[in-house]
């Protein structure tokens, strides 16, 4: 029996889908059987980020209305065969699905997979209700800015009210140089407000945009710092004890220092 984890945020565009694609892939590369579920009904895009768009035939709506078997609706990843995707319907909207229906689907998936990762839409409305209905744990994604943190706090309150108590935080798009200049909150500021466990910090990485557009999760890029961060998050999620490194601002001195001493 696996675990159902919702990846959610209050504010939109903070990197939920990116996180689901990369953590899902990383867990699968660790040998786990993983299903990623796109719960952003009406606005599907997880399949695009994962490069699976052309393989999608059925979606969760077809499973819910009984026109397709659950197993048949799962799309197998191109590179890792123990990674599957359950796509969202684009023709329907969020209110066409009830939380109970979504829950049934996820609980069934849990019987045959180690991890069921649900990509939640932003916000606190029905889409969030659907996405979190089966979740026993949640990863809350925020960027280190005041408004995203405020919305993350709201979502945490709602999850706690639903008695989802296993909550961990991903700080995404962390830019040490901006923190150093005081233009961005640091991780301590963020954790001071949210007071939940930190599972990882993903640095700002311009190559993410290109990798999403190519449908090749960043995780395959061995040189990317963000890829390393997602791999560490996957291992922590899987129960391994992996320390969170400090992300240092890159200035002239630290750059030289890092190069000279191979600390980069």
């Amino acid at each position, binding site marked *: 029996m696996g675990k159902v984890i919702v990846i959610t945020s209050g504010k939109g565009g903070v990197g939920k889908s990116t996180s689901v694609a990369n953590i899902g892939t990383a867990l699968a590369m660790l040998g786990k059987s993983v299903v990623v579920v796109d719960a952003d009904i009406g606005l599907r895009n997880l399949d695009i980020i994962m490069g699976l768009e052309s393989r999608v035939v059925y979606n969760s709506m077809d499973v819910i209305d009984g026109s397709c078997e659950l197993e048949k609706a799962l799309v197998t990843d191109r590179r890792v065969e123990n990674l599957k995707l359950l796509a969202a319907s684009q023709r329907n909207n969020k209110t066409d699905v009830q939380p109970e229906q979504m829950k049934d689907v996820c609980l069934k998936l849990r019987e045959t997979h180690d991890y069921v990762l649900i990509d939640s839409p932003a916000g606190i409305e029905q889409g969030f209700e659907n996405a979190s209905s089966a979740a026993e744990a949640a990863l809350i994604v925020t960027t280190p800015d005041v408004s995203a943190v405020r919305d993350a706090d*709201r979502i945490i*309150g709602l999850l706690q009210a639903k008695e989802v108590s296993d909550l961990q935080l991903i700080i995404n798009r962390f830019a040490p140089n901006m923190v150093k200049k005081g233009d961005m909150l640091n991780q301590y500021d963020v954790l001071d407000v949210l007071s939940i466990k930190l599972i990882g910090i993903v640095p700002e990485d311009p190559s993410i945009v290109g990798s999403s557009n190519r449908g090749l999760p960043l995780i395959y890029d061995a040189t990317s710092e963000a890829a390393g961060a997602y791999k560490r998050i996957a291992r922590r999620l899987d129960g391994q004890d992996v320390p969170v490194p400090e992300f240092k601002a890159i200035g002239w001195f630290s750059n030289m220092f890092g190069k000279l001493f191979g600390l980069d």
Partner: protein
Amino acid sequence: MVENRDVNDSIQAIPTHQIVELKGFRDGLRLMIDASASIEEIRVSVKERMANLGDSLAGTSIVIDTGGQELAAPDLEHLKSLIFETYGLEIVTDPESPAPTPDIQEDKQQKAKKEDLKSTKPNAAAAADSQSDVDRIIPTKRKTKPTAKAEATTPLLTDLPNREATHVIRYSLRSGQVERFFEGTLILFGDVNPGAEVIAGGDIVVLGRLRGLAHAGALGNTSAIIMAMNLTPTQLRIGHLITRPPSTGIRWSKPQPEIARVENDNIVVEPFNGF
């Protein structure tokens, strides 16, 4: 405003215009109206009484209590629309008031609310002989006035000197969460995060960090205080007064208990050194 420095008196009725009195109770508010006054007087008094209370009351339910006296149906209707439209309060019909005309019949939701009130009433037996439904639920001071029929009522805790109803919350409030307690003092064991709100008819004590919004004396009592172990709010309100921390700069001082109170119509914040 009201020069009333007695902290213990924070939730007792504030001396207002005799014609209307606004009180907070566990389940909402009660506006007590002397129906013998003219509608114009009542209207002015209501406005006066409710002026500058801000949006802290919005969305709560209010009972209009005319003390069994007749208030012409159109006048009552007029008052209801004034209160609802101007202050955003949900009006719960007081069964004591004159028979409602068809268009002010309470809807299902309001009925349900009232059922709630009934089910939580504390001392039914003590006041069972009262003719009024609501009065049985919430005995008011007014009933002990000479004009009221002498009857045995159990006084509320708040009717005893130096005693107040208190609402204790043992968790932190996150953004978007609001806790209100109009009946008396609110004590919170936890933090009030940015974007969260605590509102009380009396004092507010936060045994943690207050970083959101707090409104003490929400029914207009400027003698109410706000205290927190660490006071870095986005906004403080006491009665009708509002203050924000200076927009420039962050407070670097070591966290220490602080108290906010009203002095000369200003909210002042100072380290707490005992009462």
